[in-house]
């Protein structure tokens, strides 16, 4: 019996995985399933009442649109800017200083970026100071407590994240392939679009998916830098309000499930599009 199990890879050492697995099951899988079930047990009404309420109340269902309106432009901008910068930085010899500087906003987190931008972009901050001194504006421009504040915070903390991910995928592409293209007379633009980009597509799809999911779950900066009652009332604010201000955990779980569903839909669509755009043995990046 023991040898049979051992042959299948089950022995004392395999058991070491159990505490970790049990922990993740108890505190990640179980709460998710519990939340899913709880969302079908509303305070009043039939089992779908929470979802019916969500999709019939514009104050609630609008949050999806508002979140997408912030998350999609921010993600696209970050990814589109990351590619040329990563292409250039991979040629650098001393990348570490640049990557260290860029890892700072990721490490500091969104709360600090929000507080920093409140000071920096505020009516008395340096940005408005520059605009006024150089005559680019007559009055301080309102950059915080609206849509733009949240957007800028998603760029400050999102661009480094997207860039570092893109850089790790770009540097994974064998430079010999590009050199071969160059030797055969392909110009920089052709080499990028016909050699690098196709090889980058799988990594890019993952980068897009991760960046989007992060931007879609924006919370602290939407409250602190945005207008949480108006244009930046994102879906996570709706879920938080339901749970901790109305104490309706059932509704909060329903909103969390809708949030997860939108994220899964977009991620599946992105990863699905990847297989449509490109398939073949070279997708491993080695060619």
């Amino acid at each position, binding site marked *: 019996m023991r040898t049979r199990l051992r042959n299948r890879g089950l022995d004392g050492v395999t058991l070491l995985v159990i505490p970790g697995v049990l922990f993740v099951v108890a505190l*990640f899988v179980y709460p998710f399933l519990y939340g899913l079930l709880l969302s079908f047990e509303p305070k009043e009404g039939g089992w779908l009442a929470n979802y019916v309420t969500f999709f019939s109340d514009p104050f609630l269902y609008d949050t999806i649109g508002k979140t997408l309106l912030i998350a999609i432009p921010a993600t696209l901008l970050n990814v589109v800017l990351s590619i040329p910068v990563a292409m250039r930085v991979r040629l650098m010899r001393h990348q570490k200083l640049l990557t260290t500087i860029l890892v*700072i906003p990721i490490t500091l*987190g969104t709360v*600090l970026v929000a507080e920093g931008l409140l000071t920096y972009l505020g009516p008395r901050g340096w940005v408005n100071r520059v605009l006024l001194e150089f005559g680019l504006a007559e009055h301080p421009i309102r950059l915080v407590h609206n849509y733009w504040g949240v957007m800028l915070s998603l760029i400050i903390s999102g661009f480094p994240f997207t860039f570092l991910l893109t850089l790790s995928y770009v540097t994974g592409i064998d430079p010999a392939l590009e050199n071969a293209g160059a030797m055969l007379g392909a110009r920089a633009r052709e080499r990028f679009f016909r050699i690098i980009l196709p090889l980058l597509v799988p990594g890019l799809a993952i980068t897009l998916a991760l960046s989007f999911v992060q931007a879609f779950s924006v919370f602290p900066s939407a409250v602190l830098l945005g207008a949480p009652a108006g244009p930046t009332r994102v879906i996570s604010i709706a879920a938080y309000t339901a749970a901790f201000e109305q104490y309706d955990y059932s509704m*909060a779980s329903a909103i969390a499930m809708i949030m997860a569903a939108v994220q899964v839909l977009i991620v599946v669509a992105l990863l699905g599009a990847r297989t449509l755009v490109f398939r073949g043995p070279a997708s491993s990046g080695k060619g």
Partner: protein
Amino acid sequence: MRRETTLGARLWSTLIWVLVAFFILNLLAMIASVVVNSFGTRWFTTWLPAGWTTRWYTLAWDEFQLPQILLVTLEVVGATVILSGLLGVPAAYAMARRDFPGKSLVLLLFLLPLMVPPITYGIPLATVLYQAHLAGTIWGVILANLVPTVPFVVLIMIPFVEQIDPRVEAAARVFGAGTLRLFVQVLVPLLTPGILAALLLVLVRTVAMFELTFLTAGPTSQTLVVALYYAVFAAGVRPGQSIDAMAVVYMVTTLIWLLIALRFVNPTQIVGRAKR
């Protein structure tokens, strides 16, 4: 690697550097404006404040009960680091060394908490922790913080374990070492660089983990980020400079550990959480 020397290529590369420089300039100016404001007396329509003072730090120290918050932060971060190491390293060892049925499912189980954003699973998690009367206590905060860090340690440690020659372990087994002894006397010393890197990254991430702590903390179990959030949220109650003073305390705490961590890891590893 080829470099283009045509005019168009040079313009393009200049444009990219200008873009990067503009981004970094804004980033550093944002951080600098927090630091300057925290030391300034009055700052209205000038480039710099009218005078300099450190009194916002003493104010923040008393007003925000910083000693208590720093103590809680230390406890939460310390417990999270130790427990995620104890749970994660053995799991990573088993994942690296054995091929068992359902292994890919277990891998998916460890990947999911890193892919799903904390605010999405944090709300059901907080609900469950409230039901168990753990939320609001320091243990609830620690448990919530462990959800992303245990899988993180597992995924970081797997390649480190794979680097170790299995014959070293076989030799220890031949000389009669049990699994515990093997761990304490052979594996942990060999894995020290990996464990150090993984745990330092956990430390940096936990100090900055806002969402999970925010959703599960009570008034006595707030960490520094959450206290900072509440301070900014209730801006106007206290002078803005003292909030910035607190932000500086938070930044210094985080960046010291980031600098230490960067001696052992590459900056890209901090993001490359789902890297294959």
